[in-house]
């Protein structure tokens, strides 16, 4: 055990800075995917609750497909699949493929989250807004979405935590983030256990604050009921 820990003391100075830099890449990746997923999710949710059967069906198909596939497959389809067709503008870098892949899948997840937030509101709210003369769009903007937004905060926070962990999968398509760096250092130093445990610690440090926030949001929502 002591030997194990002493290796850390030896290499701390060279490993930790590199991994920290890579962690920033992870956080960036997460932030970009989160934004993409939120935008797509909102669009999907509105399509899902719309009266147009075409929009509704398209949203359902999108959600079913993107939630039914492993993230790894989506990433491979974008990075290797689209990249292999031969069309120049489809040759995404691994980073772009990572953001796109995680964002598209996240859009499906958040789409369902937003939708249940919208549907959780009483029909009466919509009727009251409409009978005051608001168009459905105005009602959505000022009455429905503001309330739904509050309801969906806990599941969105939970999604964010899952997203952080999913960025690790992007290492498999060689996107520049923490897991990839850890893997590289592990193979060059022949110390996989040390590196992966260190990576795990870093992931934990990044995700723990988020899970505290998520739990507080849940508690606040539960109290407000």
């Amino acid at each position, binding site marked *: 055990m002591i030997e194990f820990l002493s290796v850390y003391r030896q290499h701390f100075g060279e490993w930790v800075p590199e991994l920290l830099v890579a962690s920033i890449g992870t956080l960036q990746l997460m932030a970009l995917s989160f934004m993409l997923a939120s935008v797509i999710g909102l669009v999907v949710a509105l399509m899902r609750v719309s009266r147009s059967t075409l929009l509704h069906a398209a949203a359902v198909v999108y959600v*079913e497909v993107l939630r039914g596939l*492993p993230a*790894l497959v989506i990433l491979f389809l974008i990075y290797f699949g*689209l990249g*292999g067709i031969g069309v120049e503008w489809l040759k995404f870098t691994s980073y772009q493929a990572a953001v796109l892949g995680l964002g598209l899948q996240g859009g499906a997840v958040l789409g369902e989250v937003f939708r249940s937030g919208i549907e959780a509101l009483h029909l009466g709210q919509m009727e009251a807004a409409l009978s005051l003369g608001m168009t459905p769009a105005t009602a959505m903007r000022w009455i429905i979405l503001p309330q739904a937004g509050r309801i969906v905060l806990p599941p969105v926070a939970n999604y964010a935590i899952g997203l952080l962990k999913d960025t690790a999968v992007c290492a498999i398509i060689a996107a520049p983030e923490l897991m990839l760096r850890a893997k590289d250092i592990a193979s060059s130093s022949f110390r*996989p256990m040390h590196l992966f445990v260190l990576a795990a610690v870093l992931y934990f440090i990044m995700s723990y604050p988020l899970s505290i926030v998520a739990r507080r949001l849940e508690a606040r929502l539960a109290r407000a009921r």
Partner: protein
Amino acid sequence: MPVAAPKFWAVFWAKLPYFLSVLLGAAGTTIKVMLGALAVALTLGLVVALLKLARLAPLRAVANVYIEVMRGTPALTQLFIIYFGLSDLGIDIPPVPAAIIGLGMNGAAYVAEIYRAGILAIHEGQVEAALSLGMTPIDAMRFIILPQATRVMLPPLCNYAVSLLKDTSLASVVAAPEIMFFARQLVTETLLSMDIYLIVAVIYLSMSIPMSRLVAYLERARRAWQ
């Protein structure tokens, strides 16, 4: 784009049976890993859940730390630690067992929370009523608590099973012979990346979508019952 070339399509259709036989064969391992990890998660999860509900604070602490760590780190990292990390320390675990243990231990943390929610969902008053009617605790467990708890827990457990199915794809990086592993090999052989991965996507969807439908059905049945 090579898709326009008729010769390309002829080659593709000719090879399709071969692709399917390889990939569907690998699906067997996928399901094996999934069921194995599910079993581990369900049993270990029960242990963790009971620990979390224990009266002794240290036991509760162990459970909490376990859950926090498992849920706070990526499954991929955990798999790497078990497969590459342990082998570095001299403990060699073959790919499939490593995947089962890794995914199972990860899942146990989620399953433990599901068990806890299920048990807590039963009102205390019901247990009191059962006991005051003269039921033994075991009877109360059998006839009152478990049936209701099961109904509450079934949808999230099935949801977990679906996500576990998708997580088996991670096992490809520890060389477990499941779908993604063979898919990547086929792509290296044939360079038909889009086609192969599309087939893979269809295979996953044909497994995960029926399972999700089942979950939706169970959810509706539960709400109707309530």
